Protein backbone atom coordinates (compact mmCIF):
# COMPACT_ATOMS: atom_id res chain seq x y z
CA UNK A 1 0.00 0.00 0.00
CA UNK A 2 2.87 2.35 0.88
CA UNK A 3 4.22 2.09 -2.66
CA UNK A 4 0.91 3.18 -4.21
CA UNK A 5 0.48 6.43 -6.14
CA UNK A 6 -1.69 8.08 -3.48
CA UNK A 7 0.74 7.25 -0.68
CA UNK A 8 3.83 8.35 -2.60
CA UNK A 9 2.22 11.68 -3.49
CA UNK A 10 0.25 12.21 -0.29
CA UNK A 11 1.98 15.48 0.62
CA UNK A 12 1.53 16.89 -2.86
CA UNK A 13 -2.11 15.84 -3.03
CA UNK A 14 -2.93 17.14 0.47
CA UNK A 15 -1.22 20.43 -0.28
CA UNK A 16 -3.14 20.67 -3.55
CA UNK A 17 -6.47 20.19 -1.77
CA UNK A 18 -5.49 22.79 0.85
CA UNK A 19 -4.44 25.27 -1.85
CA UNK A 20 -7.81 24.84 -3.57
CA UNK A 21 -9.54 25.33 -0.21
CA UNK A 22 -7.52 28.54 0.32
CA UNK A 23 -8.48 29.83 -3.11
CA UNK A 24 -12.11 29.09 -2.32
CA UNK A 25 -11.80 31.10 0.92
CA UNK A 26 -10.21 34.00 -0.96
CA UNK A 27 -12.84 34.06 -3.69
CA UNK A 28 -15.90 33.38 -1.53
CA UNK A 29 -14.76 35.48 1.43
CA UNK A 30 -15.58 34.85 5.07
CA UNK A 31 -18.65 36.61 6.41
CA UNK A 32 -19.53 37.16 10.09
CA UNK A 33 -21.50 34.15 11.32
CA UNK A 34 -19.99 31.78 8.73
CA UNK A 35 -18.58 28.50 9.97
CA UNK A 36 -15.19 29.59 8.60
CA UNK A 37 -15.33 32.79 10.71
CA UNK A 38 -15.50 30.88 14.01
CA UNK A 39 -11.88 29.68 14.09
CA UNK A 40 -10.77 33.23 13.25
CA UNK A 41 -12.84 34.64 16.11
CA UNK A 42 -11.35 31.99 18.42
CA UNK A 43 -7.80 32.86 17.32
CA UNK A 44 -8.46 36.58 17.93
CA UNK A 45 -9.82 35.69 21.36
CA UNK A 46 -6.70 33.60 22.16
CA UNK A 47 -4.18 36.17 20.90
CA UNK A 48 -5.77 39.34 22.34
CA UNK A 49 -4.94 38.58 26.03
CA UNK A 50 -1.34 37.79 24.99
CA UNK A 51 -1.21 41.12 23.10
CA UNK A 52 -2.64 42.91 26.14
CA UNK A 53 -0.03 41.21 28.34
CA UNK A 54 2.74 42.37 25.96
CA UNK A 55 1.37 45.93 26.27
CA UNK A 56 1.41 45.76 30.08
CA UNK A 57 4.92 44.25 30.04
CA UNK A 58 6.08 47.06 27.77
CA UNK A 59 4.63 49.69 30.13
CA UNK A 60 6.41 48.00 33.05
CA UNK A 61 9.68 47.73 31.12
CA UNK A 62 9.65 51.42 30.16
CA UNK A 63 8.95 52.34 33.79
CA UNK A 64 11.87 50.16 34.99
CA UNK A 65 14.12 51.68 32.31
CA UNK A 66 13.26 55.24 33.35
CA UNK A 67 13.87 54.29 36.99
CA UNK A 68 17.28 52.89 36.05
CA UNK A 69 18.28 56.05 34.20
CA UNK A 70 17.23 58.16 37.17
CA UNK A 71 19.20 55.97 39.54
CA UNK A 72 22.40 56.46 37.54
CA UNK A 73 22.27 60.17 38.39
CA UNK A 74 21.96 59.55 42.13
CA UNK A 75 24.57 56.80 42.42
CA UNK A 76 26.31 58.52 45.36
CA UNK A 77 23.24 58.65 47.50
CA UNK A 78 22.46 55.90 49.96
CA UNK A 79 20.30 52.89 49.15
CA UNK A 80 17.29 54.06 51.09
CA UNK A 81 17.15 57.33 49.17
CA UNK A 82 17.61 55.56 45.86
CA UNK A 83 14.78 53.14 46.62
CA UNK A 84 12.62 56.05 47.68
CA UNK A 85 13.48 57.99 44.53
CA UNK A 86 12.78 54.96 42.36
CA UNK A 87 9.42 54.48 43.99
CA UNK A 88 8.52 58.16 43.62
CA UNK A 89 9.70 58.22 40.02
CA UNK A 90 7.80 55.06 39.24
CA UNK A 91 4.65 56.55 40.81
CA UNK A 92 5.22 59.79 38.96
CA UNK A 93 5.67 58.03 35.62
CA UNK A 94 2.55 56.01 36.26
CA UNK A 95 0.58 59.11 37.24
CA UNK A 96 1.78 60.96 34.17
CA UNK A 97 0.72 58.01 32.03
CA UNK A 98 -2.66 57.92 33.76
CA UNK A 99 -3.05 61.67 33.30
CA UNK A 100 -2.26 61.39 29.58
CA UNK A 101 -4.67 58.46 29.25
CA UNK A 102 -7.38 60.37 31.16
CA UNK A 103 -6.89 63.39 28.95
CA UNK A 104 -7.13 61.23 25.85
CA UNK A 105 -10.25 59.46 27.12
CA UNK A 106 -11.74 62.83 28.11
CA UNK A 107 -11.20 64.08 24.57
CA UNK A 108 -12.82 60.92 23.21
CA UNK A 109 -15.82 61.52 25.49
CA UNK A 110 -16.06 65.09 24.20
CA UNK A 111 -15.97 63.69 20.67
CA UNK A 112 -18.74 61.23 21.55
CA UNK A 113 -20.87 64.06 22.99
CA UNK A 114 -20.22 66.18 19.90
CA UNK A 115 -21.27 63.31 17.64
CA UNK A 116 -24.44 62.77 19.65
CA UNK A 117 -24.31 59.00 19.09
CA UNK A 118 -23.65 55.98 21.27
CA UNK A 119 -19.98 55.06 21.33
CA UNK A 120 -17.54 52.86 23.24
CA UNK A 121 -13.90 53.74 24.01
CA UNK A 122 -11.32 50.97 23.50
CA UNK A 123 -7.58 50.52 23.91
CA UNK A 124 -5.39 49.57 20.96
CA UNK A 125 -3.52 46.38 21.91
CA UNK A 126 -2.02 45.20 18.64
CA UNK A 127 -1.42 45.81 14.98
CA UNK A 128 -1.41 43.74 11.78
CA UNK A 129 0.48 40.48 12.25
CA UNK A 130 2.31 40.62 8.91
CA UNK A 131 2.56 44.40 8.55
CA UNK A 132 1.36 44.16 4.95
CA UNK A 133 -2.12 45.38 5.74
CA UNK A 134 -3.09 48.28 7.97
CA UNK A 135 -5.22 46.79 10.73
CA UNK A 136 -5.43 47.19 14.50
CA UNK A 137 -6.57 44.98 17.35
CA UNK A 138 -8.65 46.71 20.03
CA UNK A 139 -9.50 45.50 23.52
CA UNK A 140 -13.31 45.55 23.20
CA UNK A 141 -15.47 43.00 21.44
CA UNK A 142 -18.97 41.73 20.95
CA UNK A 143 -19.60 41.61 24.72
CA UNK A 144 -19.10 45.40 24.76
CA UNK A 145 -21.73 45.84 22.06
CA UNK A 146 -19.37 46.05 19.09
CA UNK A 147 -20.32 44.60 15.72
CA UNK A 148 -18.62 44.13 12.36
CA UNK A 149 -18.90 47.24 10.20
CA UNK A 150 -18.96 49.80 13.02
CA UNK A 151 -17.00 53.02 12.54
CA UNK A 152 -13.84 53.62 14.58
CA UNK A 153 -12.68 57.17 15.32
CA UNK A 154 -9.92 59.04 17.13
CA UNK A 155 -9.84 62.64 18.39
CA UNK A 156 -8.10 63.71 15.20
CA UNK A 157 -10.50 62.02 12.77
CA UNK A 158 -11.56 58.77 11.15
CA UNK A 159 -9.55 55.61 11.91
CA UNK A 160 -11.43 52.80 10.14
CA UNK A 161 -14.10 50.17 10.60
CA UNK A 162 -14.41 46.84 12.42
CA UNK A 163 -13.85 43.83 10.14
CA UNK A 164 -13.65 40.94 12.62
CA UNK A 165 -14.80 40.43 16.16
CA UNK A 166 -14.52 38.07 19.10
CA UNK A 167 -16.16 38.39 22.54
CA UNK A 168 -13.29 40.45 24.01
CA UNK A 169 -11.44 41.89 21.01
CA UNK A 170 -12.00 43.29 17.54
CA UNK A 171 -9.95 43.97 14.41
CA UNK A 172 -10.13 47.34 12.73
CA UNK A 173 -9.36 47.92 9.04
CA UNK A 174 -7.78 51.37 8.93
CA UNK A 175 -8.73 53.80 6.19
CA UNK A 176 -5.16 53.82 4.81
CA UNK A 177 -5.29 50.08 4.06
CA UNK A 178 -5.28 49.23 0.35
CA UNK A 179 -8.60 47.39 0.78
CA UNK A 180 -10.36 50.30 2.49
CA UNK A 181 -12.70 52.81 0.85
CA UNK A 182 -15.10 55.42 2.22
CA UNK A 183 -17.21 58.17 0.70
CA UNK A 184 -15.78 61.66 1.30
CA UNK A 185 -15.76 65.18 -0.08
CA UNK A 186 -13.69 68.34 -0.22
CA UNK A 187 -15.19 70.62 2.43
CA UNK A 188 -14.44 73.83 0.47
CA UNK A 189 -15.46 72.89 -3.07
CA UNK A 190 -17.86 70.00 -2.12
CA UNK A 191 -16.11 67.82 -4.71
CA UNK A 192 -16.89 64.18 -3.93
CA UNK A 193 -14.79 61.07 -4.27
CA UNK A 194 -13.86 57.77 -2.71
CA UNK A 195 -11.14 57.97 -0.06
CA UNK A 196 -9.03 54.82 -0.43
CA UNK A 197 -5.80 53.53 1.04
CA UNK A 198 -2.74 52.74 -1.05
CA UNK A 199 -0.40 49.74 -1.05
CA UNK A 200 2.29 51.52 0.98
CA UNK A 201 1.23 54.47 3.19
CA UNK A 202 -1.19 57.36 2.63
CA UNK A 203 -4.61 58.02 1.17
CA UNK A 204 -6.01 58.80 -2.28
CA UNK A 205 -9.20 60.58 -3.31
CA UNK A 206 -10.39 58.43 -6.19
CA UNK A 207 -12.96 59.20 -8.89
CA UNK A 208 -12.80 62.98 -8.39
CA UNK A 209 -13.77 64.51 -11.74
CA UNK A 210 -11.04 66.47 -13.59
CA UNK A 211 -13.30 69.51 -13.69
CA UNK A 212 -13.57 69.61 -9.89
CA UNK A 213 -11.99 72.48 -7.95
CA UNK A 214 -9.67 70.69 -5.53
CA UNK A 215 -6.63 72.50 -4.09
CA UNK A 216 -3.70 71.52 -1.89
CA UNK A 217 -4.55 72.10 1.78
CA UNK A 218 -8.30 71.57 1.39
CA UNK A 219 -9.95 69.55 4.14
CA UNK A 220 -11.56 66.20 3.28
CA UNK A 221 -14.43 64.97 5.44
CA UNK A 222 -16.79 61.97 5.39
CA UNK A 223 -20.03 62.31 3.45
CA UNK A 224 -22.02 59.78 5.47
CA UNK A 225 -23.23 58.19 2.24
CA UNK A 226 -21.45 54.89 2.90
CA UNK A 227 -23.76 54.17 5.85
CA UNK A 228 -20.78 53.52 8.15
CA UNK A 229 -19.18 56.84 9.05
CA UNK A 230 -21.24 59.78 10.34
CA UNK A 231 -21.20 62.83 8.04
CA UNK A 232 -18.61 65.57 8.52
CA UNK A 233 -15.80 63.63 10.25
CA UNK A 234 -12.28 64.74 9.44
CA UNK A 235 -10.37 62.42 7.10
CA UNK A 236 -7.33 64.54 6.20
CA UNK A 237 -5.97 67.36 4.06
CA UNK A 238 -5.22 67.39 0.35
CA UNK A 239 -1.50 66.79 -0.13
CA UNK A 240 -1.20 66.95 -3.91
CA UNK A 241 -3.41 67.24 -7.00
CA UNK A 242 -2.21 66.05 -10.41
CA UNK A 243 -4.08 66.83 -13.59
CA UNK A 244 -1.47 65.54 -16.06
CA UNK A 245 -2.01 62.59 -18.33
CA UNK A 246 -5.14 61.14 -19.88
CA UNK A 247 -8.14 59.94 -17.93
CA UNK A 248 -11.39 61.20 -16.54
CA UNK A 249 -10.27 61.66 -12.95
CA UNK A 250 -7.81 63.68 -10.89
CA UNK A 251 -4.90 62.02 -9.12
CA UNK A 252 -5.38 63.34 -5.57
CA UNK A 253 -3.35 62.27 -2.53
CA UNK A 254 -4.41 63.04 1.04
CA UNK A 255 -2.42 63.38 4.27
CA UNK A 256 -4.45 61.51 6.93
CA UNK A 257 -5.55 63.57 9.94
CA UNK A 258 -4.80 60.64 12.23
CA UNK A 259 -1.28 59.37 12.90
CA UNK A 260 -2.22 55.69 12.73
CA UNK A 261 1.08 54.52 14.25
CA UNK A 262 0.56 56.52 17.44
CA UNK A 263 -2.98 55.37 18.24
CA UNK A 264 -3.53 54.26 21.84
CA UNK A 265 -7.27 54.73 22.37
CA UNK A 266 -10.11 54.85 19.88
CA UNK A 267 -13.83 55.44 19.93
CA UNK A 268 -16.19 52.91 18.29
CA UNK A 269 -19.52 54.35 17.13
CA UNK A 270 -22.06 51.70 18.15
CA UNK A 271 -25.04 53.52 16.68
CA UNK A 272 -25.39 53.39 12.90
CA UNK A 273 -25.53 56.83 11.27
CA UNK A 274 -29.03 57.82 10.07
CA UNK A 275 -29.75 56.78 6.50
CA UNK A 276 -30.24 59.64 4.03
CA UNK A 277 -33.80 58.49 3.32
CA UNK A 278 -34.59 58.76 7.04
CA UNK A 279 -33.11 62.25 7.12
CA UNK A 280 -35.22 63.22 4.13
CA UNK A 281 -38.33 61.82 5.85
CA UNK A 282 -37.50 63.79 8.99
CA UNK A 283 -37.06 66.95 6.91
CA UNK A 284 -40.50 66.37 5.30
CA UNK A 285 -42.11 65.92 8.73
Amino acid at each position, binding site marked *: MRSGFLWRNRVLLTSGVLLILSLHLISAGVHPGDLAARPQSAI*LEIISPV*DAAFTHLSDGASSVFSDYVDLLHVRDENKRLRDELARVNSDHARLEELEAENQHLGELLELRDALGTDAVAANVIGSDATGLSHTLIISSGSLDGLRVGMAVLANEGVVGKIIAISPHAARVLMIDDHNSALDGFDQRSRARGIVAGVVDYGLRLKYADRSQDIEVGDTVVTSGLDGIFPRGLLVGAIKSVRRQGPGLFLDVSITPAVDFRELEQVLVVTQAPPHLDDLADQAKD
Partner: protein
Amino acid sequence: MRLILLFAVFVVLGLAFESAVPHLVSLHGLIPNLIIILAVDLGLRHHGVLPAIIAFAMGYATDALSGSNPGVNAFMMTMVFLVSHEISTRLMVANAFVGATVVFFAVILTALATIAFANGFNALSDTGPMLPRLMLEAAISAIVAPFVFAMLAGGKRLTGLPARAARE
Protein backbone atom coordinates in the same frame (compact mmCIF):
# COMPACT_ATOMS: atom_id res chain seq x y z
CA MET B 1 -0.44 15.40 18.49
CA ARG B 2 2.87 16.55 20.00
CA LEU B 3 3.76 18.25 16.71
CA ILE B 4 0.41 20.06 16.69
CA LEU B 5 0.86 21.22 20.30
CA LEU B 6 4.45 22.35 19.75
CA PHE B 7 3.59 24.37 16.66
CA ALA B 8 0.41 25.74 18.28
CA VAL B 9 2.52 27.19 21.10
CA PHE B 10 5.06 28.68 18.66
CA VAL B 11 2.29 30.10 16.44
CA VAL B 12 0.47 31.77 19.35
CA LEU B 13 3.72 33.31 20.64
CA GLY B 14 4.82 34.24 17.12
CA LEU B 15 1.55 35.91 16.17
CA ALA B 16 1.34 37.73 19.51
CA PHE B 17 4.93 38.96 19.00
CA GLU B 18 4.27 40.06 15.41
CA SER B 19 1.06 41.91 16.28
CA ALA B 20 2.07 43.43 19.65
CA VAL B 21 5.68 44.50 19.09
CA PRO B 22 5.16 46.82 16.08
CA HIS B 23 2.42 48.55 18.05
CA LEU B 24 4.68 49.07 21.08
CA VAL B 25 8.03 49.82 19.45
CA SER B 26 8.48 51.80 16.25
CA LEU B 27 10.47 49.43 14.05
CA HIS B 28 8.91 50.68 10.79
CA GLY B 29 7.35 47.28 10.23
CA LEU B 30 10.71 45.49 10.27
CA ILE B 31 9.66 42.43 12.22
CA PRO B 32 10.82 38.92 11.27
CA ASN B 33 8.02 36.83 9.78
CA LEU B 34 8.05 34.01 12.33
CA ILE B 35 5.14 32.10 10.81
CA ILE B 36 6.96 31.71 7.49
CA ILE B 37 10.00 30.42 9.40
CA LEU B 38 7.78 27.84 11.10
CA ALA B 39 6.26 26.80 7.74
CA VAL B 40 9.73 26.36 6.24
CA ASP B 41 10.80 24.22 9.21
CA LEU B 42 7.71 22.04 8.72
CA GLY B 43 8.43 21.63 5.01
CA LEU B 44 12.11 20.86 5.43
CA ARG B 45 11.93 18.52 8.39
CA HIS B 46 8.46 16.95 8.57
CA HIS B 47 7.23 14.99 5.60
CA GLY B 48 3.62 13.94 5.79
CA VAL B 49 -0.01 14.94 5.58
CA LEU B 50 -0.23 16.37 9.11
CA PRO B 51 2.56 18.96 8.62
CA ALA B 52 0.80 20.16 5.44
CA ILE B 53 -2.42 20.65 7.40
CA ILE B 54 -0.51 22.40 10.21
CA ALA B 55 1.04 24.80 7.64
CA PHE B 56 -2.43 25.59 6.25
CA ALA B 57 -3.77 26.13 9.80
CA MET B 58 -0.86 28.46 10.62
CA GLY B 59 -1.69 30.53 7.56
CA TYR B 60 -5.35 30.59 8.48
CA ALA B 61 -4.43 31.72 11.99
CA THR B 62 -2.34 34.52 10.46
CA ASP B 63 -5.35 35.49 8.34
CA ALA B 64 -7.28 36.02 11.59
CA LEU B 65 -4.81 38.75 12.57
CA SER B 66 -3.74 40.21 9.28
CA GLY B 67 -5.38 41.78 6.26
CA SER B 68 -8.97 41.58 5.19
CA ASN B 69 -8.82 38.69 2.71
CA PRO B 70 -9.06 35.40 4.65
CA GLY B 71 -7.30 32.59 2.84
CA VAL B 72 -4.35 34.54 1.44
CA ASN B 73 -1.91 33.59 4.18
CA ALA B 74 -3.36 30.06 4.33
CA PHE B 75 -2.58 29.73 0.60
CA MET B 76 0.91 31.17 0.94
CA MET B 77 1.88 29.10 4.00
CA THR B 78 0.76 25.93 2.21
CA MET B 79 2.85 26.98 -0.80
CA VAL B 80 5.87 27.75 1.40
CA PHE B 81 5.48 24.33 3.05
CA LEU B 82 5.19 22.59 -0.32
CA VAL B 83 8.24 24.33 -1.82
CA SER B 84 10.31 23.62 1.32
CA HIS B 85 9.15 20.00 1.24
CA GLU B 86 10.12 19.62 -2.41
CA ILE B 87 13.54 21.20 -1.77
CA SER B 88 14.08 18.85 1.14
CA THR B 89 13.02 15.70 -0.72
CA ARG B 90 14.55 16.45 -4.14
CA LEU B 91 17.75 18.28 -3.16
CA MET B 92 18.19 16.10 -0.07
CA VAL B 93 19.23 19.09 2.03
CA ALA B 94 17.47 20.59 5.03
CA ASN B 95 20.16 22.58 6.83
CA ALA B 96 19.79 26.03 8.39
CA PHE B 97 21.40 27.83 5.41
CA VAL B 98 18.92 26.33 2.96
CA GLY B 99 16.13 27.13 5.44
CA ALA B 100 17.25 30.76 5.77
CA THR B 101 17.47 31.12 1.97
CA VAL B 102 13.96 29.72 1.52
CA VAL B 103 12.70 32.07 4.25
CA PHE B 104 14.27 35.08 2.48
CA PHE B 105 12.49 34.43 -0.81
CA ALA B 106 9.28 33.23 0.88
CA VAL B 107 8.89 36.54 2.79
CA ILE B 108 9.20 38.59 -0.41
CA LEU B 109 6.97 36.34 -2.51
CA THR B 110 4.33 36.08 0.23
CA ALA B 111 4.17 39.87 0.53
CA LEU B 112 3.83 40.36 -3.22
CA ALA B 113 1.23 37.59 -3.47
CA THR B 114 -0.77 39.12 -0.62
CA ILE B 115 -0.88 42.46 -2.43
CA ALA B 116 -1.75 40.80 -5.74
CA PHE B 117 -4.55 38.71 -4.21
CA ALA B 118 -6.03 41.74 -2.46
CA ASN B 119 -5.78 44.30 -5.25
CA GLY B 120 -5.18 42.42 -8.47
CA PHE B 121 -1.88 41.97 -10.25
CA ASN B 122 -1.90 45.60 -11.49
CA ALA B 123 -1.22 46.68 -7.90
CA LEU B 124 2.22 45.05 -8.09
CA SER B 125 3.36 48.02 -10.18
CA ASP B 126 2.83 50.24 -7.08
CA THR B 127 5.08 48.11 -4.88
CA GLY B 128 8.36 49.74 -5.99
CA PRO B 129 8.71 52.01 -2.92
CA MET B 130 7.98 49.01 -0.68
CA LEU B 131 10.70 46.75 -2.07
CA PRO B 132 13.70 48.03 -0.03
CA ARG B 133 11.73 47.62 3.20
CA LEU B 134 10.51 44.22 2.04
CA MET B 135 14.06 43.07 1.25
CA LEU B 136 15.22 44.26 4.67
CA GLU B 137 12.37 42.43 6.38
CA ALA B 138 13.21 39.29 4.38
CA ALA B 139 16.88 39.60 5.38
CA ILE B 140 15.95 40.03 9.06
CA SER B 141 13.68 36.97 8.83
CA ALA B 142 16.49 34.96 7.19
CA ILE B 143 18.96 36.00 9.91
CA VAL B 144 16.52 35.10 12.68
CA ALA B 145 15.51 31.79 11.01
CA PRO B 146 18.43 29.62 12.28
CA PHE B 147 17.71 30.72 15.86
CA VAL B 148 14.02 29.84 15.49
CA PHE B 149 14.99 26.49 13.91
CA ALA B 150 17.24 25.86 16.93
CA MET B 151 14.44 26.77 19.36
CA LEU B 152 12.08 24.45 17.48
CA ALA B 153 14.67 21.69 17.58
CA GLY B 154 14.94 22.18 21.36
CA GLY B 155 11.15 22.01 21.65
CA LYS B 156 11.08 18.85 19.56
CA ARG B 157 13.76 17.22 21.71
CA LEU B 158 11.79 18.12 24.83
CA THR B 159 8.61 16.59 23.41
CA GLY B 160 10.37 13.52 21.99
CA LEU B 161 9.90 14.46 18.33
CA PRO B 162 12.68 13.99 15.74
CA ALA B 163 14.49 17.34 15.49
CA ARG B 164 15.87 16.76 12.00
CA ALA B 165 14.62 15.24 8.78
CA ALA B 166 15.47 11.56 8.46
CA ARG B 167 17.74 12.08 5.45
CA GLU B 168 19.64 15.10 6.82
